[in-house]
């Protein structure tokens, strides 16, 4: 069941709030990944009829899973596999969002290519895009499978292992209507009187993260575009040198070979920028994570608001009881006005009202208590996941920047190589 992982997993992470154990036992070992290897091995194009009986082409992804038994090292289970399309991944994610609102749910790779620089295709059917999406989907599954709470979810497990009937199973959980109301709530405007300061700060952070990563991705794409231009124009040197070498006797060979190096220089940018796309994808993941973070904060706000509303309602009911008991009307009410105009009620009426109010107050107290518990529990769980997320984010982004530096170093070294070769050709002219 969806909720079975909740308290148990929360227990797990509360035993190890700083994730210090993580250094010794990787997070994955405490989760599903301990038991199985997961990969998105392939992507294929399919054609079929859609809901409105029209022919459409779409891509399916092969999910391979293999049981790993740590006890028997030599055991080689053959992998199981099934095909899923992007929309099914979306379904899974929406289910997780609704079922674990306090979890910062890992994002899916983008639906449509954005932040494309000039040469990169924005076409969903483009093989490079499909390949990067395949990697992104695998990354998504691994993230979920290594999450202390999400990895224990049965629907997730079935997504990986049950080809048939999974969709129906998800729908039966009744998450869809919850998903709709969640969306509505996320977009509603309401004011919280006493927000939790930590969550307010977290919300600001998520806004900043979203804004800065999207700006970074935009600028990076522009820089990539320009760099592409610089390298490619050098290819023209190759062409002109080659043409020029035809009329030169002494310099001909030198010019010709230097020209080849210029061609190589121009060609080298393609691989360089393709690799850099991986860096962009890592940034994009955290751009989308920011969205998930925002949602968690928003949910907290909603719960807080409901709590405050419940408290407010209770207080006003208690006040009404007081007024009824003392006969004074302190607050303006239509009842008060009409009774003033048309005369007081009978004692029997007053008693009936009092009984109703007492009942309502009783219910209100219970509701308030419920809301309070719900809120506290939410705060505890959400904060715990936030801490886990922060450790992951700091680690991942640091690694990303290191690999970016490595890419830059490799690019510089290639440049030095090419120009050294060219210099030699020129020297021999």
């Amino acid at each position, binding site marked *: 069941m969806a909720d079975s992982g909740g308290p148990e997993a929360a227990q797990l992470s509360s035993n190890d709030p700083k994730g210090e154990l993580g*250094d010794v036992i990787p997070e994955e070992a405490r989760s599903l990944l301990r038991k199985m290897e997961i990969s998105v091995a392939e992507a294929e194009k399919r054609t079929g009829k859609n809901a409105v009986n029209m022919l459409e082409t779409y891509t399916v992804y092969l999910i391979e899973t293999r049981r790993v038994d740590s006890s028997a090292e030599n055991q080689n289970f053959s992998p199981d596999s099934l095909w899923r399309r992007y929309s099914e991944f979306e379904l899974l994610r929406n289910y997780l969002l609704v079922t674990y609102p306090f979890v910062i749910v890992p994002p899916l790779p983008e639906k449509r290519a954005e932040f494309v620089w*000039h*040469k990169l295709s924005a076409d969903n059917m483009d093989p490079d895009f499909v390949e990067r999406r395949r990697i992104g989907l695998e990354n998504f599954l691994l993230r979920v499978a290594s999450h202390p709470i999400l990895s224990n979810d049965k629907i997730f497990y079935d997504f990986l292992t049950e080809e048939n009937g999974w969709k129906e199973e998800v729908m039966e959980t009744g998450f869809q209507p919850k998903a709709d109301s969640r969306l509505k709530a996320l977009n509603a405007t309401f004011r919280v009187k006493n927000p939790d300061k930590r969550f307010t700060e977290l919300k600001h*952070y998520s806004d*900043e*993260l979203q804004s*800065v990563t999207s*700006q*970074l991705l935009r*600028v*990076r794409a*522009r*820089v990539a575009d*320009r*760099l*592409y*231009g*610089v390298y*490619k*124009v*050098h*290819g*023209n*040197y190759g*062409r*002109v040198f080659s*043409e*020029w070498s*035809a*009329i*030169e*006797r*002494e*310099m001909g060979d*030198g010019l010709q070979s*230097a020209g080849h190096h210029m061609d190589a220089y*121009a*060609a080298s940018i393609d691989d360089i920028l393709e690799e850099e796309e991986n860096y962009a994808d890592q940034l994009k993941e955290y751009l989308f994570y920011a969205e998930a973070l925002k949602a968690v904060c928003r949910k907290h706000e909603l719960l807080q608001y409901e709590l405050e509303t419940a408290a407010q309602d209770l207080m006003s009911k208690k006040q009404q009881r007081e007024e009824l008991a003392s006969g004074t009307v302190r607050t303006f009410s239509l009842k008060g006005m009409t009774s003033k105009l048309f005369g007081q009620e009978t004692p029997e009426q007053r008693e009936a009202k009092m009984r109703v109010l007492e009942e309502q107050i009783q219910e209100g107290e219970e509701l308030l208590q419920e809301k309070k518990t719900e809120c506290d529990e939410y705060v505890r769980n959400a904060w715990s996941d936030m801490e886990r997320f*922060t450790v992951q984010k*700091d680690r991942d*982004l*640091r690694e990303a*920047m*290191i690999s*970016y*530096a*490595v890419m*830059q*170093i490799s690019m*510089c*070294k290639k*440049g*030095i190589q090419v*120009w*050294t070769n*060219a*210099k030699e050709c*020129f*020297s021999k*002219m």
Partner: protein
Amino acid sequence: MSSNLTAAGFPTQALTGEMLELDEDDDLEVFSKDVTLTDGSSVSASLPTSPSSMTNQYRFEEESDARDIFVTVDNPESHVTALETFITYRVVTKTTRSDFDSCEYEVRRRYQDFLWLRDRLEETHPTLIVHPLPEKFVMKGMVERFNNDFIETRRKALHKFLCRIAEHSILSCNADFKIFLTAQAWELTSHKKQGPGLLSRMGDTVRAVAASVRGVKNRPEEFVAMQEYVDTFSQRMGSLDKVTQRIFKEMKEYLDDLKQYGPTYVLWSGSEEELVEPLKGVAGCIDKCCQATEEQLSQMSDNLVPLLHEYVLCSDTIKAVLRRRDNIQTEYEAKYDILVNKQADREALKGEVEKLEDKVECANSALKGDWERWQSKMRGDVKAGFVSTAQKNIDYHEKCLAVWESFLTSVNADQSVEKSAGLNS
């Protein structure tokens, strides 16, 4: 002006293709000289090798060993008068030549004076290759007229111009050259006024136009080859000039975007805690790469760009020289025709024809000799220019490499420090 530069076999493709095509670009009409480019695909294997293999009737003195005159151009100064603002340059001459009264001279000259000198040299030696001057005006493009870089680039070109003259065994003995180097300002002005008058110069021009209309009859093989070489060379230089300017433009735009890239990382670091160091580190690296890029751009415009442009102008100079040679031959051929066809005044005509014949021979010899030396200088310049360009590119990439490597070192050092701190706690 120029057509799309497509040689046979290279499809025209946009940026998405293998190579960036040089499309018609208004911005490339930077300079006042019009470089006309045509499709180079007519260059075939049948093109003879450069005329340097031909025998040289005029043997020039070995110039590099016995240099007895050295000229430098430096110290630009701005002068403001009621009518105009202009720059003068200091020209210093050091010489042991006996026909110079002193062994050291220092004068100030302005661009106009250089123009005058060059015109005089071309008039006196119509078939010698006189090195071109930097352009008079720069209309659009990379620098403005009184910008320091522009003045420095011009100074270097003027210096090279005078050096080439001084190294030339014939041109360095020219009287106008001596006056240019030694005369006081007022002396030069009065000397300039004494030159061949406007009318006589107009006469020359009319004759030249008439001759070119007539066309030369039997252009010697070596000059045909020279013409073909220069035509192709001129196209190649023009293309290289264009390519280099395009690279400059693309790099400038790259730099502009790069300048926004670093600050974005800094902005991000403001929201983070653990990531502050690496984010600021990356930003720092990008900023240092910006600096390296600016240096690269500046040295490009100081070195390769002027060099290529100089040789575009050289090609025009040589084309003009070939035209003048042709005109001299045409003049002779015309007079010769008259001699053959008319009976009257045979004796007088014969003398004239002989003189013109001599003139043609002198012109041809002078050019042939100068051609080889120009070729050799050109190769030297080109080699030095491209070697230096390659080196500058190596330096540029090495600067960036060092920057990123030091970032990696410091980031990994941080990590190991943290790890050991974690273990100890």
